[in-house]
Every structure is written in C-alpha cells, then in structure tokens.
C-alpha cells in the first residue's frame, strides 16, 4: 500500500470518528434542549443513523492502514440498527399517544376510521 493511499484512508477513518461523534453529540443535545416529548423522540433516530453509522464505517476500515482487511461485521450492526430503531420509535410514539402525552390536536386520519392506538380495543385473535 502506497503512503498516499494509507494517509487517505487514515483521513477517512478520522473523519468518520469525528463526524459520527459530532452527530451523536447533536442528537444528545437535542434530547436536552427540545421541550416536548414528541420532539425529543426525533433525537435518538438521528444518533443511530449517522452517529453510529459513521463510527462503524471507521471501525470497519480501521485495520486497512496496518495491512489488515475490511471487517464486514460492523455493516451488520448498522443493518440491525436500521431495522430495529424505527420499531422502538414507533412503540414510544404509540405509548405517548395512548397516555395523552404527545402533542395535542392530532389530525383526523381522513379514512373514516380512528388511529389504531386510539381506536377500540380489539380482543386477541
């Protein structure tokens, strides 16, 4: 590996770590700063997408400058985060709506049916 390429990869790793850290910090800052529960829910989806994603990319190519190989396992962590984060966010949002702690004036669904969380409870099938 040429020294130029090695420096370039090291720069990418550094950018990934610093950039990922910056976005995770902004996400946490939003958690403190935003006043309403529904607004705070936006912060964690930020931190998991770019914050963790960039740090994992840096970790994935972290062995390259020393002559190692690209590690694939970090991509899996990103994939699993992308799969699970929307589900936990949806659960939190539904809980807030059900407890009446979400923002008021929820609009009509426009379909003639109520929103699933606020509708009549159905027995388990």
């Amino acid at each position: 590996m040429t020294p130029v390429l090695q420096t370039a990869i090291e720069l990418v790793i550094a950018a990934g770590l610093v950039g990922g850290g910056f976005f995770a910090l902004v996400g946490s800052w939003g958690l403190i700063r935003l006043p309403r529960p529904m607004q705070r829910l936006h912060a964690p989806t930020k931190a998991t997408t770019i914050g963790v994603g960039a740090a994992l990319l840096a970790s994935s190519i972290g062995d390259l400058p020393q002559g190692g190989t690209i590690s694939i396992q970090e991509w899996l962590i990103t994939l699993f985060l992308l799969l699970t984060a929307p589900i936990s966010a949806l659960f939190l949002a539904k809980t807030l709506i059900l407890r009446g702690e979400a923002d008021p004036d929820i609009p009509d669904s426009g379909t003639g049916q109520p929103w699933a969380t606020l509708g009549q409870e159905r027995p388990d099938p």
Partner: protein
Amino acid sequence: MLKRLFPHPYLSLTLVVLWFMLVNQWKLGSLVMAIILATILPLVTSAWWPNRARVHHPLRLFGYTMLVFWDIIVANFQVAYVILFIPRDKVQSRWITVPLDLKSPEAISLLAGTITMTPGTLTSDMSACGRALLIHSLHAPDPDSVRDQIKSRYEARLKRIFE
C-alpha cells in the same frame, strides 16, 4: 415440496448472506450452518407471516436503498441545523397525515421505516383500517410539501417495486 420447505425464499437467502457476514470467513462449515438456519427460521416463524411477499423488481430495491442512504445524510444536516440554531419556541413541530396508496403490508412497513430513519420525520401511528399513516415532523413550516415529498419520493418508488 420446495415451497413448503422454504416458505420465504428471499428471507432464506438473506439469512444465508447474514450468516456469512456474521462469521466473516468463507468455510464449508459456515455454509452448512447457514443453510440450517435458512431452513429452520422461516419455518418456525411462518405462522406470523402467512403470505409470501411479492417483489416485482428486486434490483430496484437496491436503487431505493441508495436513495434512502443519501436522504439520511442530507436530512441529518437539516435536523442538526434545527437543533443547534433555531430558537426553541420557533421550532414548528406538526402532525402530518399521509394517505396511503400502497396495499402490501411489507411495502407499508418499509415506507414507515424509511420515514422514521430519515431524521426530521417520525411514523407515529397508523389508521385502524391501514389506509393512512400519522407522521410527526420536527420542523415543518410547510406540512403539505413534506407529505407530497413522502408520497412522490418514497411511496411511488415502493409502489413500482412491490405492486
């Protein structure tokens, strides 16, 4: 016979690829383990996923993924701007109703996941009949444009892929 053994061929294929990514090496033993998992897991979970998902254009799914990745990066900068520079009483958070044209449950869950992962919008609920999504937007001075963007940018593409 083959259909009963592999109720979800895409899921089985994904499991094989995932297993190889997890063990991080190419060995025959890993392939055997991958095939065992790819057979057992879809069979055990098939009770909760009775219908086979139909994907008409699997290759377009790749293009869709790239588009979503790009949007995640752009939207992150927008939300970082909202959090850092807009005064807290000026942040206009809104509810947005998005009527759905999609019918396939897999496509709708993919759309809901996309909306949540692109920062700034959050899927919060679904109507009881499954024909509309409730979305919370962190900062939307113009809620109609957010709804139109979701419909034209994501839903139209998913409709071409799945229906």
